[in-house]
């Protein structure tokens, strides 16, 4: 069956521009997660969705970052006024149930963001 998909796979943007990254989770998965993978910081949690609600936004690095999820499915991560330190691979994951520690998270291939 289809896995988690993300688009675009690569995004190059200029400093100060806004970008939108999209995630399509596995059909039927109620939980969705965003992570960031960067050279200096490793893999960091950004935000968690349960259905369309985001009970945990604690990992968002600044108010330039926001995310939404609609219809319990697709999610969009938006970065406003991008900075060079935002350059990273943004990974999306989904899991079948609503955020238990035993859940397996299934990851998409990621979006590589480069801010010039």
């Amino acid at each position, binding site marked *: 069956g289809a896995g988690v998909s993300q688009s675009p796979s690569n995004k190059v943007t200029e400093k100060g521009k806004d970008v939108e990254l999209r995630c399509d989770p596995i059909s039927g998965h109620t939980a969705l*997660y965003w992570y960031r993978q960067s050279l200096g910081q490793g*893999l960091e*949690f950004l935000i968690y969705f349960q259905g369309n609600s985001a009970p*945990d936004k604690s990992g968002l690095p600044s108010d330039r970052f926001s995310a939404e999820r609609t219809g319990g499915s697709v999610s969009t991560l938006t970065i406003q006024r991008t900075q060079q330190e935002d350059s990273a691979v943004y*990974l999306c994951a989904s899991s079948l149930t609503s955020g238990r*520690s*035993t859940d397996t998270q*299934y*990851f998409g*291939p990621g979006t590589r963001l480069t801010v010039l």
Partner: protein
Amino acid sequence: AQSVTQLDSHVSVSEGTPVLLRCNYSSSYSPSLFWYVQHPNKGLQLLLKYTSAATLVKGINGFEAEFKKSETSFHLTKPSAHMSDAAEYFCVVSELGTYKYIFGTGTRLKVLA
């Protein structure tokens, strides 16, 4: 607070020899532990997970890991390395009552012909 330490950033083995990737964790409550593999320019793929059932966990592609509470370890092993095993491996902890994955810094495995 939970954390995970991968003791080696790089490991090199010859094809056909055993693989050992080390992981130690810290967790206040019953943890769930996972190993993921990431091939170049690919997403993370689950190799195996421990969720308080059997302490020896078998995963895909011949990998296995043993949960040792007394040593707070969850080392990943494979009896015989294959060239296709060359990748980066991440140990992950998730604490009971939470959903957040805490990742180790990764171990890059190189397999020599």
